[in-house]
């Protein structure tokens, strides 16, 4: 067979060959070219590198993924290639995270590089709702005082204006009563939230550079681990977070669709998962943007380490 036939093989066939499912007659010819032809050997090596990289990034799908798991990973040497690719990916990821502190504003950056633990606290959204209600309630009390002053002043002037202000004050009291009830309901629900022991970890957007991996110290008895993932930019209306084990690329946990929320001048995606799902090891949270047109795009991998205490 002429050596020029090497150009006849498309990448798809070569991938099938690497995954052990090329037709026998073609596999024989590819075997020969893989040893005897310089250009072909390098092309095959390049494809193999990319294939392994795609696998470790969790982008391999369908039949290719099945063949990869059943054939490619059956060889110790090929597994070493996968381990190397995973190492290279993590190395690049760590390098990317090193630049993160410079790009995160001070009000978003955690006070400590390690995680902050909130024992016996409510969930973050419980805090947020309570905080908003308190601010509103405080404003209304202030506004009441203003109205009372105005009513007192107005009594000296015209009666219709006084009536209008008294009506306004009554409305205000009614609104106060509603807010007060809402605040009480929030307080009543707090004991349930208080019973949850929660650990939170803020992760900056993955960028280039070298830095230490963020560590989540999870004390014994922790119920929930909350990850707050800072987005580089909020380009999608919804996101999904997939937690993966970097050593095996297996999915450990997957979120439902989550809407991003503002935090300072950044946008974050928050997830909470049961602490007993996590082991003492490295993980990465893969954040995928979901567009209304069903377009998905992986927007970042957030590496972190779990240490159980």
């Amino acid at each position, binding site marked *: 067979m002429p050596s020029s036939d090497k150009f006849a093989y498309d990448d798809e066939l070569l991938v099938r060959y690497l995954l*052990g499912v090329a037709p026998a007659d073609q596999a024989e010819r590819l075997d*020969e070219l893989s*040893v005897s032809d310089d250009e072909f050997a390098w092309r095959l*090596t*390049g494809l193999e*590198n990319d294939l392994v990289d795609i696998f470790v990034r969790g982008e391999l799908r369908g039949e290719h993924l099945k063949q990869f798991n059943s054939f490619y990973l059956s060889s110790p*040497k090929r597994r070493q290639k996968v381990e190397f690719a995973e190492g290279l990916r*993590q190395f690049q990821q760590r390098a990317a995270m090193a630049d993160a502190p410079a790009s995160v504003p001070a009000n978003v950056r955690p006070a400590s590089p390690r995680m902050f633990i909130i024992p016996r606290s409510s969930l973050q959204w419980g805090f947020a709702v309570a905080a908003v209600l308190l601010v509103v309630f405080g404003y209304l009390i202030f506004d009441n005082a203003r109205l009372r002053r105005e009513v007192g002043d107005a009594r000296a002037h015209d009666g219709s204006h006084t009536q209008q202000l008294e009506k306004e004050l009554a409305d205000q009291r009614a609104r106060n009563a509603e807010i007060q009830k809402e605040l009480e309901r929030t307080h009543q629900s707090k004991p349930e939230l208080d019973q949850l022991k929660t650990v939170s970890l803020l992760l900056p957007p993955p960028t280039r550079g070298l830095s230490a991996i963020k560590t989540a110290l999870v004390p014994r008895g922790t119920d929930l681990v909350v990850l707050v993932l800072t987005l580089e930019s909020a380009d999608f209306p919804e996101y999904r977070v997939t937690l993966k084990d970097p*050593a095996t690329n297996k999915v450990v946990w997957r979120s439902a669709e989550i809407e991003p929320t503002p935090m300072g001048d950044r946008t974050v995606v928050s997830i909470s998962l049961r602490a007993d799902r996590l082991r003492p090891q490295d993980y990465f949270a893969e954040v995928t943007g979901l567009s209304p047109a069903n377009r998905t795009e992986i927007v970042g991998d957030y590496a972190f380490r779990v240490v159980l205490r």
Partner: protein
Amino acid sequence: MLPGFEVEYCGLRRAHVKKAWTSTQGAFREFLHWLDEGVDSDGEKYLELRRRLVLYFDRRNCLNADDLADETLSRVAQKLQEKGEITDLSPTHYCYVIAKFVFLEHIRRAEHSHASLEEVSAPGRRGAALPAQQPPDAASAAGEQMLDCLDRCLKKLPPADGDLILDYYQGEQQEKIQRRRQIAVRLGVSANALSIRACRIRTKLEACVRSCCAKD
């Protein structure tokens, strides 16, 4: 017959010439010269051919791919010494022909000795069983070691090569393609030439990391 020896020639540190035939330094030098086809590669051609042979046997799920690659090279060197010259096929093509024989003999030997067929399955057949999963602590330690070795090995590369490897294999899908185009333009080389260069660096880096992890 001389015992097998470890060749130290032209930068080759671990070229195993062994089994039934053993070479002298002179014969091995002749073998390297023949592989180089007139252009001195300082042993690079030999190492690259051995790498390809190992991959060939490994794709056929031979657990002892390294030994079979060495066996192939050893037989080719022996043939060359016996014949004086081999001109009907190119060196790499000739090596492939011999590798095929070595593989077939390997299968026969395995069948005769009732060895598990999992060890010598043809492409497409399932190979050895998947490894047992490491406990999390061990996996984490191995991961740290890998990263440490990567760091060390990257520092051994020329800085431009280190930058290239990190840049070339960065990103996903479209972003990666675009990035590679930009690198090729920046370096003034074709996409194909860049791909080969990146592959060579990665192959070298992988070998260094493997060796580093084995030592630690």
